[in-house]
């Protein structure tokens, strides 16, 4: 859980990096690698396609894209024929470094060598810092944040969302250091959402249902019908993985909060990515889900 959280944070930073500078090939590639690790293959594919629009000739990017396409093709066929096959973890090549650029050069693309080397060295600092940040996050992440803000001050204004994401992400740190999920959830709506996603992933229906206010029910269903429906849907698959990616917190009152995030839902043969908005309220001293909808 903690590792996933760090990856999510690192991803948020990378997303801001690539938004600030769409020619940052290393950042795109690293972003794709993290997205793969977080199970967001569509996102990873998009990242690499972005990078390949900038530089169609960087072999590592193409190879990584092919890897993802091949994996997704296999998953699609598995879904088509209802025959899930055992999938090894997918690992992308991480370095868009001179070695790979040289390969391109051999193919007679001198220009690409120079450009790739340039961009590689330009980004080397940021990217290695980022990669390290997965292991030694706190210090490096802070540094990166400032690098990034400095490097891209013009673009950072793109989103208040990005800025409000930072404190939200930081607020999750104490929860990891100690304390039960319940304590964390009292203090932090994002933790409540993460705990809810974990209960869902653990297929722990009681904990899942307890994440909602006692009177919650969607339109058209009674609370009992809804609970029954959720129980079936959560218990039926043999595994579920729900990830909360890039959560952004908005407090709309002392007892009201809103978390917008990208949800990656996976189960056997199923993969759904959506933007979600969850409204929470304090109920019996804890943040509970009051409303759940697609965002945008």
């Amino acid at each position: 859980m903690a590792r996933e959280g760090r990856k999510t944070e690192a991803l948020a930073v990378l997303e801001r990096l690539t938004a600030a500078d769409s020619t940052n090939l290393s950042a795109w590639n690293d972003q794709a690698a993290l997205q793969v690790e977080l199970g967001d293959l569509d996102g990873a594919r998009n990242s690499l396609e972005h990078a390949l629009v900038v530089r169609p000739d960087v072999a590592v990017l193409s190879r990584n894209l092919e890897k993802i396409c091949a994996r997704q093709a296999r998953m699609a066929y598995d879904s088509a024929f209802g025959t899930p096959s055992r999938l090894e973890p997918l690992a992308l090549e991480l370095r868009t470094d001179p070695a790979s650029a040289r390969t391109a050069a051999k193919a007679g693309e001198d220009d690409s060598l120079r450009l790739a080397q340039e961009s590689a060295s330009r980004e080397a600092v940021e990217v290695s810092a980022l990669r390290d940040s997965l292991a030694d996050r706190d210090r490096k992440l802070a540094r990166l944040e400032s690098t990034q803000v400095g490097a891209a001050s013009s673009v950072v204004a793109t989103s208040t969302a990005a800025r409000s994401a930072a404190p939200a992400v930081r607020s999750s740190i104490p929860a990891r250091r100690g304390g039960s999920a319940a304590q964390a959830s009292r203090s932090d709506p994002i933790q409540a959402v993460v705990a809810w996603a974990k209960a869902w992933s653990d297929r722990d229906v009681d904990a899942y249902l307890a994440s909602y206010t006692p009177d919650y029910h969607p339109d058209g269903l009674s609370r009992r019908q809804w609970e029954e429906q959720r129980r079936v849907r959560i218990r039926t698959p043999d595994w579920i993985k729900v990830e909360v990616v890039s959560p952004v917190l908005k407090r709309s009152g002392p007892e009201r909060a809103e978390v917008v995030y990208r949800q990656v839902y996976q189960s056997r043969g199923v993969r759904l990515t959506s933007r979600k908005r969850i409204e929470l309220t304090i109920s019996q001293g804890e943040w509970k889900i009051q409303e759940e909808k697609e965002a945008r």
Partner: protein
Amino acid sequence: MRRPFKRAMFFTGLCCVSWVLASDHHTGATVPDSAESLLVRTLDAIRAERLDLALARSDTLVRRQPDFRLAQLVRGDILLAQTGKLDRFAGPRSSDPRAGGLRDEARARLRRYAQGPPQDLIPRNLILPPSDAHAVLVVDSRASRLYVFRQMEGEWKLDGDHYVSIGRNGTDKQAEGDQRTPLGVYTLASRIDHVDPYYGKVAFPLNYPNEWDVREGRHGHGIWIHGTPLTTYSRPPRTSNGCVVLPNEDLESIQPLFQTGTTEVVVSDSVDWVGRDAIDSVRQSVESALDSWKSDWASNEVDRYLSHYSEDFRSGNQDLQDWEKEKRRVAQGKTWIKVGYTHLSIMLVPGEKDLVVVDFDQQYESNNLSNQMRKRQYWRWEDGTWKIVFEGTPKLS
């Protein structure tokens, strides 16, 4: 975003997926964001050599409908084409026996878009559908399509069509276990709300075998209209044991129109779409035959009455001789007869030559007996005139 694809890679994918695309097809108007229209638009993008667009559309499609197997297969092909490793339909899974079924499904669904149902024409079978029915359903087995007709401004008009799957061995069911879907005119006999999830959420048994099937010695049971398993969006064209299977969302959308005991389902191999003039002339000729039968019956002249019956007539255990004997006996006690009918319906029976099924409420009065009944007759065109080959009450279950 458009990334330049390697041409060779691209064409490999293109050849493999575009076999299904008719050379000249237009996208017909249906539900714009249905899974089917998204699939067709995905394939359109492939045809237009826009693999990137095709991939983006397939992303949307499988997000909306992850259990749409054909969509997943097409997506697998598009993705694999990007790696240059797609050499045939369904790539590395082309030898899977189920690949052929999915290819057939793609063909059927695309054909619908290549050539939508004709405007302003209706199936020849709908001569005069029951006036109190909200809808009439027409299945075209070769097109893997179910058409819904509704009365609008006094006319029966097409109001939507849906992909369907039928029996493994096709149509013309004759016997229990032959894995075929019966051809004919059927009625929704009942509604089952709690079905095994394999059949979706709701099922509507048909009255197979109906009186004509019984007369022809056909047997078997359990022919339903039902949905797909809850984890499967749709099934290939020929996969049922004889039932007519619709995707759950399609069945959900049309089932509010279903009236058990009333809604008729015409199951045919190939719908013959005709103009209203053609329908009207058949309707008039059947109605005039019926009127003349009615007045000959009321005349109590048994020979004239019997002239409307075919040599081939049968009703239950009775053949024409039995029928004649019975009628001559009854006629002796009559001094007067009045016959009337209301709520007439006339349908052309698919899979038969010039056979119509005629239903009506019959009001019979005579000096010694009066009654009212729902009557069903089958009339066949023989030597230039309509003859009754079956008469009885409708068998509704």
